[in-house]
Structures are given as C-alpha cells and as structure tokens.
C-alpha cells in the first residue's frame, strides 16, 4: 500500500523506504548509500535540513582484501575496512588458508557497519579475506539537486514499485500591511492557499484578528482577499511558492524498464536534473503537454511517455508507448507544489531538466 509522508530526517526517509532497501552500505545523519529491490543500481541521498539531493551509480566495485592479519583478543577484533557481509570470506589461523579456519556464519559474526568481528574461537594471529567498498560516497551522479532557497516542506511518496521525494520551497511574508477598501485587498504575492495565515488589525498580531476560512476568502491565483471585516490598516502573514522546488523519482515503466527522473523549478543551470533509463544506461527525456487545457474544469492527464535524449526515439512497450508508473503528464500549470496528502501531488511548472534546459511548461502529477 502506498504511503505519503513528510520526513523530518534522513532516518525517516530510510525508514519510509522500508522493504525497498536491500542493503545500506553507508549511513550517517546527512548521507545514505543503499541499493534497492527496484533495480540493480546504487543510490545516495544527501539530506540537508529537509532538502534532498539524490544520486545514482551504476556499479560499485568491491576491493578484495587477502590475508589481513590480526592478533585476537577475547575472540573479537576489528577489520581495517567495513566488509560487504554477503561477500566476506572466512577467517583462518594459518595464512593462505593453510591452517584451521572457520566458515562464516557458523562460528562468528561480522558487523559490516563497524567492521567488528566477534566470536572468533581462535587464538594468536588470525588471517582474513574479505571484500569492501572503497568509495562509498564518491563517483555518484546527481539526478536531482536542491538550491539555496528556503525549504517549506519535504514530501515523500512510497508506492508499490516506485518512490519519490519532493522538496517544496516557499517564502514567508510577515506583517504585510494593506489599507482596506471595501473589505477587499490584494496581497503582493500569490499565497499558498492552504497554509495562509490570518490577518489582523494591529501589527504583530497584537490586535484583533480573523481566522482564515471563517471570515474571509483568499484567491490564491490572484492574491485577492475578500470579506475582511476590518477597517483601516490590515496586516497579513502568509507564504508563497518559489520556483526552486525539486523532485527525484525512482521507479519504472509499464515494460519494466527501470528509470529515474529528477527536476527543478529553477532553470537547471548550475545544478543537475536528469532523466535516465537505468535498464539500458542511457539518458532519456519526458514528452509532455505543450499547453494548458481543461475539460469541465478537470485537468487532462495522460501517461507520461519518454524519449531517448540522443536519437529522440520514443520509448516503447511492444507496439505501445512505454508509460511511466506513478507519474502522469497533465495539462495544468500550477506554480506551486500541491498535494491532497493521500492520493496525488502536482509538481510545480515550469520545471527543468539539465539536459535540455527548456522549460517544461506543464505539471507532473504523481498519483499513488
């Protein structure tokens, strides 16, 4: 069952990914390197107080250690490097495996986060063979990056066969003063409707104030506030969306093709946002609506389709077009990230990929 959450830490993100995570190779409070059951690639998530930068890497080549020697004390010792548990070899008391040795998982345990080996039932010098990953956080390629703007909220969607992290950016306005005329005024910026704070007649909320939704309405397209039952100068606190939001998606298409997709509301110069076919290791790009349209006020949606960046060949699933699972192209262009928190999320438009730098003028719709 799909879940939507607002992770407050990297640990929350890893926890939300749950069964998707097959192996965690490295983790601290700001970085995690892991593989998933979704594909055969490796991912790194860098977390900076809610902002998320996502990386991928196609291969991680282990380094082989042979005959690393240790003098045992109390049956426990620590390896120089952090071994990859599934590939660790055994330990032995004679170098080159000529002496007595113990088969892994029978007589001892290895903590592959700390490198500590325990319960070695040996004495004197112990030798060991194992593999470790020398460059855990290097050589990754970014597919979604964040900017220096102010983060408002982090969204995370984990569905049956894909996940996405969306970082929403917004700017706060405090004590914006307006002189009321006829109970109506226009905010300087277009507020995020659902989060707009209240209005009051004394600065710093010291005077009378009206709670949103009770006494007045806000049009978040025009910024017009109506039915303010006040007179004179009114002060407002609110937030409005900025263009900086970014998203990263890891999932697949109808054909089973593994893909990643990252984007940013800013023109992508200086950051990297890419779309990639992980199955064939090639860069790809989405094909979207080229304009806004509605049907009886409903947004039109269609399966998100992709093309090869180099040849422009449309990606296919047999004779059909290969659709992305969990994301739809839609004929809408809201400038904010918007979600109902239970089934869909619009990513703001315009948005950009680094590969072409062209404005994607319509929203992506994540549905779960």
């Amino acid at each position, binding site marked *: 069952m799909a879940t939507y959450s607002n992770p407050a830490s990297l640990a929350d993100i890893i926890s939300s990914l749950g069964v998707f995570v097959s192996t965690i190779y490295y983790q601290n409070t700001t970085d995690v390197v892991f593989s998933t059951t979704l594909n055969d690639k490796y991912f790194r998530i860098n977390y900076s107080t809610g902002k998320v930068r996502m990386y991928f890497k196609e291969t991680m080549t282990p380094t082989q250690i042979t005959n690393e020697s240790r003098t045992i004390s109390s049956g426990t010792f620590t390896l120089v490097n952090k071994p990859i548990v599934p590939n660790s070899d055994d330990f032995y008391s004679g170098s080159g495996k000529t002496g007595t040795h113990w088969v892994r998982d029978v007589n001892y345990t290895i903590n592959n986060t700390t490198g500590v080996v325990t319960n070695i039932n040996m004495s004197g010098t112990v030798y060991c063979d194992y593999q470790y990953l020398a460059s855990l956080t290097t050589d990754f390629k970014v597919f979604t990056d964040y900017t220096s703007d102010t983060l408002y909220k982090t969204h995370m969607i984990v569905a049956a066969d894909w996940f996405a992290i969306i970082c929403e950016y917004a700017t706060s306005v405090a004590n914006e003063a307006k002189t009321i005329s006829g109970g109506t005024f226009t905010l300087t910026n277009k507020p995020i409707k659902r989060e707009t704070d209240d209005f009051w007649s004394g600065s710093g909320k010291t005077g009378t104030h009206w709670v949103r939704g009770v006494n007045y309405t806000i049009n978040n397209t025009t910024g017009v506030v109506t039915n303010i039952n006040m007179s004179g100068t009114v002060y407002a606190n609110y937030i409005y969306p900025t263009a900086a939001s970014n998203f990263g998606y890891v999932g697949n298409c109808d054909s089973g093709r593994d893909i990643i997709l990252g984007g940013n509301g800013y023109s992508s110069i200086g950051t990297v946002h890419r779309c990639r076919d992980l199955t064939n290791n090639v860069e790809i790009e989405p*094909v979207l609506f*080229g*304009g*806004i349209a509605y*049907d009886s*006020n409903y947004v039109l949606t269609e399966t998100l389709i992709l*093309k090869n960046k180099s040849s422009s060949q*449309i990606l296919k699933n047999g004779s059909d077009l290969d659709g992305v699972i969990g994301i739809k192209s839609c004929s809408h262009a809201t400038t904010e990230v918007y979600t109902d928190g239970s089934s869909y999320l619009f990513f703001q438009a315009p948005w950009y990929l680094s590969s072409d730098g062209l404005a994607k003028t319509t929203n992506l719709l994540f549905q779960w």
Partner: protein
Amino acid sequence: MAASYSSINVFDTTIADIVTALTAKSLITVNCYQSTTVLIFTSPISSKYIRIGVSPSGIELKYGDGYSGSNLTGTVVSINGWYVTRPISGIHMVCDTNFFCILTETTSFSAAGQLIYYGITDNNKEIAFGMYPDGSGYSYCTNVCKNITDNTTMYPVVWDTSFNDGGKPMTQGLIWRDASSGQLLKNGANPAATIGVKNVSIRNNYIMKGENYIIFQSPVYMTSFGMIPTAIKVDFS
C-alpha cells in the same frame, strides 16, 4: 475528396493562383473582390466574408461581416500578421472541400514565414488561425485562432518536444482549448481535431515538403500564447 497541393506564384499571379486553388475545391461561393493583391470571397465553409491580402513581404487572412471595395466591413478580425518584413520566396497552398491552408517561406530569414488556415474541426466548429515563427517579434503582431462558430479565441494543445519512432515522427490531431477557461474543444467524449492539419512530433527550422505532405517550420508562435514547440503538418494527395 482528398486535399490537393498548389504551388502559388510569388509574383503577379499570386491571387489568381489562390483563386484557382480555391475554385478547384469549390471553396468560393461568391468572388466579391479580386485584384492582384486582395481577394474577398464568401465560401460554403464560412459564415463570414474572407479576405486574403498579399504583398512581397507577407500574406494576411482576415474575416468580416461584409465588404466594400477592397476592404471588409462590420466586425473585422485579423487572423495573422508579421513583425519583421522579409521577402517571400515561396507560397504553398493546400485545399480541400472543407479547409484551405497557406504557408509562406523566405530564403533570407528562417523565422519569417507565415501559416494561415481557414476550415473546420471534426465537431463542425468553423475556425481560422495564423502562426508565425519569429520568437522575438511574435508578440508585436496578431496571430490567433478564432472559433468563429462560438466567437471565442483558442490556443493549440500540442506535444512539448520532438521525438520519433524508428526515425519516423508521430502525428496527432491538432486540438484546441479555450484561451480564457482552458476548456478543451471536444467532439463528444474526444478532443475535437482540426480538419486537414496535424501536430507532428518534430522541430525543424525550415519548411519540409514531401510527396504528400508539407510541414511548417517549428517552433512557431501565437500572440498571447507564446511558443508552439512542435510542428504543424498538412497532408495532401
């Protein structure tokens, strides 16, 4: 009846050639006014008086409620225009019994051609539109789509980027939405497609003409709408 292609003479006989092409598809009910630079006529596909004007630097499409001499009268609507004057080097016209489309090109400047269309959609809306490929000058001139039946302005809904399948571009119906409400123009449960022209998934700097098709240069622009990122294709036999 299938659509037919005509190469229109750039000089001297431009209007006469257009009349010949229109007449071949019975698109002229009354030839109200004809000179070497102006044609005003009524048509079985139109509720208006249609005016086509030509000059060495451009071709223009207007419609109105009546005419007087070389001018339209009543409410006159300009469908297209151009900002930078460049000599026309070629005029292509495709006509069928329910639409006509004219595309111009220049050799000196790739972003100076014009596309005009008058016809219907498959839900029988009478429409006319113009497109212009000058990305820096389009906002200074008129290029619109008018739904004449409903007296509304419309914008196209097209693919946002080029792509192909096995090297061949794909096509879809050229569909429209209301410029104000965004409401899609529909034919029953489906989007209403424009008769005679399609959206094709390519981006090209110059007109491409084949044995049975012509593709206008891309991107093109419409006033108040901006860029139409993929191309317009007109088929004929």
